[in-house]
């Protein structure tokens, strides 16, 4: 009898992709001033997808000037309800083109299509819908008697792990508050930001309100250093974030940073273990672990350590790694060769430091960048893999004996973006949550996002909040 195995189920939509993308400045597509382009590839097969303009400092200057002009001429003067209308239009267009955008996101970044389809794109649309609603109600976000004012031109730099969603997190509140923006997408994942630029163009926003300048770190640095930018919002690595903070120190520019993390995911012995395992799997293997709030440090109460390890070993064997475009793929491609090498280096360090490595039994595709779902046991706080952000599908498992010890170990990190707690005892859950120093604590769940809920870090995970009413304050002055 034939066994019941899933046949390949590739997503069939083919998105419109241009051979070459220019910069989106002042409502127009234009060539980069010095004529340079770079290639963006599909990390699942290393095939080139398109040529993308490399924005220089001169291009950034053009974009900022366009944004300033749009701010002075149109956007700041527009009735808030009319601004909302444009933002709603963007939200609807993202929803209407959801499948195409999902395929594009998966092609360019390597994440499984089920995640881009069910999470990235709908959540991006939800952020535009949510902030569109705020545009004409900003007084209600302020303390009584205060009047909200926009800031001006905002420079926004987004990472490669959730390209369109991070662009939405940044652009939607900025526009709702009456600012204009220059967006710099990540070098390896520019395509959905460029698709968003097309949507902005089709939505007929006044030229210059949204500008997209593709490029690399130098492009971002030019944006950070531009004199006419009032605010920089950055999501990315802590190292780059620190550089930006240094560059902006002593200037008038505002800054929000959403940086790395090494989140503690705490599992008590009285947790509903099957569901806790699902939470752990979601926490570290979602988007191949390319998640700043990933639950990458599992703190397990010692008495259930062996059982949790046994269950997790069984569970990761059922994860389906492979073609990200297959609707049944759970683990897609690592975003880039550089990231794969970084993951491999840290995993080698874990083995060298004496931790025990467990990996899902599977064959990796011959082409493209892949890394199996993995975890380390016998990890100690002094190991690099317990302290440094791996940003890949690699979990470090540590143990604790009491709630005090769990909290102490959880907080013993330079980061503080997120944390998770699993226990059936409500009072313990609340007590632990109160004592964790992290921007978001998920109780008996993980990776829950909603536009109405603020998100952001403590300490080296950054400052400022995105999402919710708190997200508005970062783009307003009273």
């Amino acid at each position, binding site marked *: *009898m*034939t*066994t*019941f*195995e*899933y*046949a390949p*189920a590739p997503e069939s939509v083919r998105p419109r992709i241009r051979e070459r993308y220019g910069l989106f400045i002042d409502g127009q597509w234009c060539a980069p001033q010095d004529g340079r382009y770079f290639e963006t590839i599909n990390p699942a097969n290393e095939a080139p997808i398109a040529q993308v303009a490399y924005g220089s400092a001169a291009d950034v200057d053009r974009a900022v000037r366009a944004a300033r002009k749009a701010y002075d001429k149109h956007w700041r003067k527009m009735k808030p309800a009319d601004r909302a209308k444009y933002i709603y239009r963007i939200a609807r267009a993202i929803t209407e083109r959801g499948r195409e955008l999902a395929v594009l996101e998966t092609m360019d970044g390597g994440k499984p299509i*089920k995640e881009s389809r*069910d999470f990235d794109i709908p959540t991006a649309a939800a952020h535009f819908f949510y902030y569109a609603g705020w545009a004409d109600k900003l007084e209600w976000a302020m303390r009584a008697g205060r009047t909200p004012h926009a800031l001006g031109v905002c420079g926004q730099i987004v990472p490669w792990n959730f390209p369109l969603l991070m662009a939405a997190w940044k652009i939607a509140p900025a526009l709702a508050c009456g600012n204009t923006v220059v967006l710099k997408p990540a070098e390896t994942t520019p395509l959905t930001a460029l698709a968003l630029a097309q949507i902005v163009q089709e939505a007929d926003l006044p030229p210059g309100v949204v500008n997209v300048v593709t490029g690399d770190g130098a492009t971002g640095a030019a944006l950070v250093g531009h004199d006419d930018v009032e605010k920089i919002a950055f999501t990315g690595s802590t190292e780059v974030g620190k550089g930006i903070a240094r560059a902006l120190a002593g200037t008038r520019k505002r800054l929000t940073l959403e940086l790395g993390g090494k989140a503690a995911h705490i599992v008590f012995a*009285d947790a*509903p*273990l*099957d*569901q*806790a395992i*699902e*939470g752990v799997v979601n926490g570290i293997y979602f988007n191949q672990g390319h998640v700043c709030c990933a639950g990458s440090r599992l703190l397990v109460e010692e008495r259930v350590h062996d059982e949790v390890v046994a269950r997790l070993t069984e569970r990761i064997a*059922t994860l389906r790694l492979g073609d990200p475009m297959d*609707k*049944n793929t759970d683990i897609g491609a690592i975003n880039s060769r550089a990231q794969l090498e970084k993951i491999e280096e840290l995993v080698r360090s874990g083995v060298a430091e004496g931790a025990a490595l467990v990996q899902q039994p599977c064959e990796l595709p011959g082409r493209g960048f892949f890394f199996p779902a993995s975890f380390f046991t016998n990890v100690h706080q002094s190991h690099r893999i317990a302290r440094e952000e791996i940003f890949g599908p690699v979990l470090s498992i540590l143990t604790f004996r009491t709630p005090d010890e769990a909290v102490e170990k959880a907080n013993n990190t330079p980061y503080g973006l997120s944390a998770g707690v699993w226990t*059936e005892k409500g009072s313990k859950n609340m007590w632990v949550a109160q004592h964790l120093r992290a921007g978001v604590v998920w109780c*008996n*769940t993980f990776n829950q996002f909603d536009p109405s809920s603020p998100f952001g870090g403590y300490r080296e995970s950054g400052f400022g909040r995105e999402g919710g009413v708190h997200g508005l304050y970062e783009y307003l002055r009273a």
Partner: protein
Amino acid sequence: MTTLAPVTVDAVMLEARAASLGKRSIKNEAKRVGIDLAIRCIDLTTLEGKDSEGRVRSLCAKAVSPRPGWPSIPSVAAVCVYPNLVAVAKDALRGSSVRVASVATAFPSGLSALEVKLADTAAAIAAGADEIDMVIDRGAFLSGDERKVFDEIVAVKALCGPVHLKVILETGELGTYDNIRRASDLALEAGADVIKTSTGKVGTNATPPTALVMCEALRDFARRTGERRGLKVAGGVRTTKQALAYLVIVKETLGDAWLNPDLFRIGASSLLDDLLMQVEKLELGHYAGADYIPKD
């Protein structure tokens, strides 16, 4: 009585996991294999007060040969009837691979004296039942009398001997996933060969999260004892899509070893018609229409 400690279940994450399994895309060859498997796992059921000899004979004919002229379509696993009709079914199915299952123990409420339940079961077995679908006393379970539930299963199992015993938890009346998990553990420890979701007689029958939590109990039982016991989902499973979703839950929670009629059943009446329609769609490239499928 079992010394097993209660296992807790988080409803939010359980439902999220069941929903994510429900998104598996089952196409082409996988769908064809899945449909055949689902047909082989069906307990084709008629449990109505108006059931008669004629009705049961029609159903048995369909159970043996669901789609005349299409010999590749397998027979279903069993026909499930009330005790009074077991002899008729047994006669109608003679010579086929299809087994006769009978509900018993004061189905569907289970609210009779143990002696009555045992007599009910004994009559069904005497009439030739290969399998018994008993119900637990939900009132006793919910009032905390786990011992009564446990002991009744033990008594019925003792009477059944080699006859396959399915224990219906009636999950729609248990209220919480914690309770469903506890009832599953009790039934397995008491000797159930199969744990079954529902009678089909209450508002909520089999659901994907319910099946998932029962699979977790079965998986843990196998881990604890080395012994594989079975799952039956029943009530409200009408479409191919639903049936395939249950196969996915079983496959990814228990493994391929459970994907056969010894360890997995679907109790249904109209599901078979939809499965046959989908086979025709796959084979012919178009929907033939409901009138091309024998309705019995």
